[in-house]
């Protein structure tokens, strides 16, 4: 796969797109997996990830977090990142989703199981 770009695009459910450094976006195991050519997902070809369950506001914070994390990777006594309280619940959901190392099929199945 020749087109391992430096930047990748993350698109929210309400069609806001965020262009972020690949190196910081792959902090999320889910995104890393999506973009890994070895798995052959469509995302890895277009270098674009669509998130149907994350809206623009939340995704913006997530991207902010990616950079915050990368910036403070080797430092200690890091100040906490600030975000509005009303976003925290949605962010928890997003974080849980993006943190999952389970393959997507299983993941979505788990979600369906939970719904039932």
């Amino acid at each position: 796969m020749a087109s391992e770009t430096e930047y990748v695009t993350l698109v929210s459910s309400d069609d806001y797109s965020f262009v972020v450094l690949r190196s910081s976006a792959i902090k999320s195991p889910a995104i890393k997996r999506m973009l890994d050519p070895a798995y052959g997902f469509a995302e890895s070809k277009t270098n674009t990830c669509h998130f149907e369950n994350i809206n623009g506001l939340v995704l913006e914070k997530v991207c902010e977090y990616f950079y915050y994390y990368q910036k403070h990777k080797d430092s200690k006594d890091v100040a906490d990142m600030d975000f509005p309280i009303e976003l925290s619940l949605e962010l928890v959901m997003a974080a849980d989703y993006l943190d999952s190392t389970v393959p997507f099929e299983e993941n979505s199945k788990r979600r369906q199981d939970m719904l039932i």
Partner: protein
Amino acid sequence: MSGRRGGNRIRGPQSALTDFLAANNISAAQIRDDYERRRTQAEAQATGGAESSTQAPGASAAESPVGETEEQTEARTNKRKRREKDAIDKIKNDKASKKGPKKKQKKKHDSDDSDDEYDVAQDMYRKARPAPGQFEYCEVCSKRFTVTPYSKEGPDGGLLCTPCGKELAKDMKQEKKAAMKPAGRKRRKLESDRLDGIAAGGAKSLMQLCIEKIAAHHDDVEELGDIPPTVLERLSEIFSKKRVMKPRTLRLFLRGDLEDVVVHDAAYLEEEDYHQMFAVVPKMKRLVLGNACQMKDEVIDYMLERCKDLKHVHLYAANLVNDKMWLRLFRERGPKLEIIKLKWLDASFEDAVVQEMVQSCPNLDRVKFKLCRKLGEDAVAALGDLPKLQHLSLQIGREVPSTTLCELVSKRGSQLRTLSLEKFVDADDTVLQAIHDNCGYLNKLRFSENDTATDAGYTSLFTEWQNPPITFVDVNSTRDIDNNNPEGPEEAIGVASSGFRAMMAHSGPALKHLDISSCRHIELGAFMDVFNGGQSYPALEHINISFCNRVDTSVIAGIFKSCPALKKLVAFGCFDVQDVVVPRSIALIGVPRAQDAIEQFGVGIDVDEAIGRMVEVGA
């Protein structure tokens, strides 16, 4: 003086301006005199250049005193100047204090005074504050109100009516509160987080950040929505830790579709909260309640009635439940129960209850009894008859003879995966031998706080043992305790050099968690052999070598080299450890004489470089 004179004088009608000037001790005559003086002075200067050379270079002509004849004027001018300066200072001070400490500090750092000067100038040109008693329009709500000495100033400099002023004061207070967070406390919190293993350097995870935020605003959260159970559990843990798990917040964690209810600190919950818990979550399979001190018989009764699927019961300090109820719980739910964990039971729960539990709950595979005061030998003996038992943790206060333990191990050992025997002070080598002979699937072994079993016993346990390498070993505080003989007897008691070598040789390849704190008799040589840098322990993440007083700096360096996966090394009371340079991503906790912090965290240096630096320091 002037007052008396003024009182005798008969005055005609005066304008408001004259009144104002008089009130502020400004006299028109004086202004005129000053003006005259300055004018003549300027003229004199223009004509005679020699005169100007006598004056100080910095002082302006107008301000400098000239001639003894004008002594009085000079004094007066000085006085007025002083007053003027005082006024400006006062305004400056007021300004600064109004801005709050945070901003002030920032100013200092910026050394940006021009802004301040500008503010002062603004203040001087601002409309004078109306005197008390006058009417004024409120800046915020535009209502007319009477000015009092206590009227607050609004954000744009106008005055505020009393209700708006109160609002503003409230806001200001909150702002101040938010701004004032003592640095000391923050630092301590950070250390505490590190010791808890939350902060391991770098940034916290987004999940952690969110959860903390939610916990901090627990009062404002109405509903948590359908967040995943794993997150919910984590959140519940944090709520418990912050002691905000109250009847109001409990509701957030109860959902009809859940199968788990986990409340690690239920101390605030009362009978009706427990009822609510079982009413809302009837499908409950797993119940974890810590500090369940207000859990009564009636609650268990209701639970038995509502929750038919209960499999996992974990209660901590449920002292209001009496023996009869425990018996009922086991009898009615017996075959379904798989996990029982009980801690801190003082008032009830006797050996007979355990015997009943063993009879009625054949499917139990995990049992933990800790600090249950009434349990003793009979309970331990009874546990041997649980056919499916795989995980067993015991800490029994009463004396339990080694033979009873041996019997238990020989009956159940063959399928045990976890065996944790804490504080069985009298357990001797025969117990270790029984473990060696019977256990073949152990994954976690704890045998701690014992001063009877000998080094030879541990050595033979780990030598030629059919059990595959263990991932979790905790043999802390196995040592001889005789104050008169700190070195211990010839034949070492507890895990000592040869036992430690045998243990690492057996379990080294899979070991993840090692606790040998207070194993005082392990010699330096054994540590050097085990952590020699050449031998690698690929899985080892957590090591506790506290109070192993032979450990020195080279052992620490050896550990860094031998354990590539190491995350946390606890070394309280190792007094020979000095000048350690901690490599990246390892937390070293408790090394004494650490000047900066109790915990040292490696930054950006990898193992080889760190060891290189240590060698330099040592040389």
